[in-house]
Structures are given as C-alpha cells and as structure tokens.
C-alpha cells in the first residue's frame, strides 16, 4: 500500500487560489493595521463613529483589523476571479478568440440597401 506523504500532495488550482487569496489579504491587512494605528488612536475613532458603544481599545483594534481583512479579502478574491475567468494565455496572439467579423458595404450584395443612410 502506498500512502501519499503530505509533502508529495499537490494542491489543486482552486486550493492554491484560495490559499493565496487568504494569505495575501491577511498580510495586507496586517500592514494596513500597523500603518493605520501608527497614525490614528483607535479611541478617537471609537468616539467619533460609534459613540453609542463604549468598547475598549482591544476591540477597536480587532474590529479595525477584521474590517481591513474583509476589504483586502474582497480585493484579493475579486482579482483572482477576474484573472481566472478572464482570457487565458495566448489571448493576445488571438488564440481562443473568434475571427474578426468581416464587414462589407451592404449595397454590394443587396441593391436595395444603398441609400445615404446606409453608407
């Protein structure tokens, strides 16, 4: 019996996509949170935007990070979606594309369609 060693296991494309999306969004959100709280005191934000809820510092940090993570996740996931569902390699060379539609002067084959409005 052969058992696959975890190291030999290969991730499917979908697994890779999501792993990358989750991880890159996390890193971006972390950088964002560092920079944000280097500049802004969360207590200021708490007073300004949600004065009804008197929540503490840590919750403010946590919520801000969660928010940043969500935004980054959205950006990452949408980017992945756009690239995966977009044209594939070879598109610029014309691969997988329909031939350029041919056009002609309609009056050449159908004499009735020849007035100025059709030119």
């Amino acid at each position, binding site marked *: 019996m052969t058992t696959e060693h975890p190291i030999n296991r290969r991730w499917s494309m979908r697994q890779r996509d999501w792993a990358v999306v989750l991880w890159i969004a996390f890193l971006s959100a972390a950088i964002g949170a560092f920079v944000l709280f280097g500049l802004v005191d969360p207590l200021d934000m708490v007073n300004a935007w949600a004065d009804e809820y008197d929540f503490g510092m840590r919750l403010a940090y946590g919520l801000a990070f969660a928010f940043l993570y969500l935004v980054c996740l959205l950006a990452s996931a949408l980017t992945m979606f756009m690239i995966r569902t977009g044209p594939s390699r070879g598109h610029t060379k014309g691969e997988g594309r329909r031939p350029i539609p041919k056009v002609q002067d309609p009056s050449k084959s*159908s*004499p009735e369609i020849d007035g100025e409005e059709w030119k």
Partner: protein
Amino acid sequence: MSQKQDADTALYRKDPKVYPRDVKGSFASLRKLAVFVLLGLYYLLPWLNWGGHQSVLFDLPARKFYILGLTFWPQDFIFLALMLIIAGLSLFFVTAVAGRLWCGYACPQTVWTEVFLWMERWVEGDRNKRMKLDASPWNTNKIVRKSSKQILWIGFAFWTGFTFVGFFTPIRVLGESVINFQLGGWETFWMLFYSFATYGNAGILREQVCKYMCPYARFQSAMFDKDTLVIAYDEARGEPRGGRSKKDNVAEKGLGDCIGCTLCVQVCPTGIDIREGLQIECIACAACIDVCDQVMEKMDYKKGLISYTTEHRLNGKESHIFRPRIFVYAFLLLALTAGVIWAVNNRVLLRAELLRDRNALYRELPDNQIENVYTLKLINMDFKPHKYKIEVINNDDMRLLISPEPELDPEEVGNFILRMQAPISAGRGSMKVDVRFSTLDEPVIERTVSARFLLPFD
C-alpha cells in the same frame, strides 16, 4: 529589423479599432433618453438647492451627507450602507429579468462613451468618414478635425471632473475658486483625476473596459437563466444568409432572411457579430436590433430577426417572467426598501452623548449632596432650531443643573456642562441614571440616554 517585426506580428493579434456606426431606432432613442436623464441628473443636481442645502452634497469635513431633503450624520452611516445594498439588489433583480439592461443603457461607461461618440461624430463624421480620416495622411483637415475633437473631449472631461468634485465641495464655491484660480490642492487633484478617468474610459478605452476590466460583465451570467432577456439572432430564420435583391426568388435561392449586410456588426460598439451567438462582449445595447429592423423593413421582411428574446423562446419553449429567483430578489428588494424608508422616516432627529468628567469621580457638596460632572454633546439633526428640556427619569432624588440652557440652531452640535446632584443617602457606588432629552416645542423629539452616577463606595 524585419525579423523583429515578423516576430512581433506573430506574437500579437491586433484587433481593428471599433468605429461604431450611428444608429437610429426605438432602442437608440431609449438610450439617448437614458443618457439625458442620467447625465442631466449628474450635471444639474449639484446646482440645485433643497431645503437651504445643495441637493446632493457629501460634506466630508463636516461629516454630513445631504441627499435631497435628507441629512445623513455619521451615525446614519448604516442607511448609506443599506442603500448601497439596495442598489446592488436592484442590479441583481433587473439582470435576472432583463439581462444586461444596466450595461446597455445605464452604466456610466456606456453613457459617457455615448456622449464622447456623439462628439466624435459631430467633428469627424460617421463610421466611414472616421475610418477614412484615420487612414488619411496628416493634412490640415485631419489636424483641424482631430484637434477640435480633442478640445471637445477634454473640455467635457474637465466639466465632468469639476462636477464630480462639486458633489463634495459646494459647487458654487468651487466654481468661484476655479474662476479665481484659487483651487485647493486636493480639489485640483480630484478634478484632474476624474477628468482623466472620464477621458481615458470614454474616449480611449471604451469597449475594452467592458471586455477586460468590468467585474459585473463577468458575473452577470450567474444571475441569468433561460428566461432572462438576451439579444439574439434567430438563426433558424436567418440562415443560410446571403445577399439578394427584393425581386429575387428567395425560395429558389435557398436563402434565409439574413441578407448578410453586416450592418449589425458595423453598429456594434464592442465590434462583435451577434449572429455568432451570445457572447460575453455583448453589452446588450440593442443597436443591432435597431439597424436590423430597419433593413428588414426595407426588404419588406418581418422585423425581429435580431431581437430581445430568451433562451427558452429561441428553443421554441414558453418563457416565464415570474420565476422563483425573481420572487426572491423582488421580495428582498421590497423588504429592504420599505425598511430603509421606514427607518429614515422614524429617525430621532436628536442625539445626545454624556461623557463623565474623567478628572474626578464625584464631589461632595456641603449639604450632604454628591455631584457628578458630565460633558454633554447635543446634536440637533433637525432643520429647525429647538430648545431642550432635560430631566432624569425614575429617580426623584436627582437634581440636574446645566449651563447654558440648551438651545440649538438647525443641524448644530452643542457642548454643555451638565451637573447631576443626589443626596449621599441615595446609594453606594455606581448607579445607572436615565436622562431624557426632549424638545420644548411640538412635535416632541426625545431621546433617553443612560449614564453612570458615582457615589462614595464605603
């Protein structure tokens, strides 16, 4: 050199520039109407006033959003979020019913591209003239036409950028700053940025935005089913296509109704051939329907060789407007809209925040009274001035002292010092106090806020 050129051509298939031919017809008129209404709203709304305010103004420094008769404060942010969700749901709903209606008639990309195309046509002429002009060598005529077009485009783009910033800075003030060359740095930046975006998207990129950049174009198909309206060519009726004269015997020639005039290709703003079947590039603008109908009329054939139809109808099956997904979208949309309208109408136009003085827990007064001091922030969100009454509810021992007497102008934020006093016998430690704020005039606007009142602990 020639080797390099060969390699380049082999690596790259250049698509020809799309020169959409002008088209007239019912759907073209509908689009024209949409352009006038939507851009009319965009360019005019900031100039109109409503209730003493610019009708739509996102005043970021003051953190107040004016939308028609309503003012949204930071605390109302949820409404804006909900309105965005409603807008998204409407898009789902419309897409499920009528396909890419948004793309063909309402998307800013379509609407602005349409206007840029009009300008191009005024200056350079319709499709054939434009193609000839582009192919011709640079002469006076070409220079004059091309530069006039650029002047029109850039002017219109600037006006667009100016209007955009006018939604964030009062537009009349902004206009004065532009005339006197006193624009601030950020205003200049955003004006130029939005002008550039308009020029680039509507003048240069055009259909490429829809084909490569637009996320909606990618996932709209998820909202489609076999009963969704699409634009399609009736292959069974049209094929085999071929040129003919009206006098020809079509049956003898073995031809379908498509005369192969390729006008449907020439009017297409994304440069596709609808007769090849439904394609992701099709933005459902219906230009091909309009032009094909005119050709059919000219040939004395029945209209509708290219038409709005559904996959079911194309396959000879019955099409249904009412399907489960339509009901689900419609229900969600109605419920959310009704909810938001109700909630906006029932907003309490008064906010109060009580912050305890952080320097002292409490103060003992000579007559066995304990005093706590608070900073009161009172916001009058109404369009009328109000005087306010403040009282402690459910506690008769408590006395309230405030200076000055709270009176606020429309949309004013006031800060006051509020003192609360209670006899030392009222309790021990921390006590919850409910303070009610209400207007003295009718109809009464009131809000109750809780605060902590501290007494000696021992």
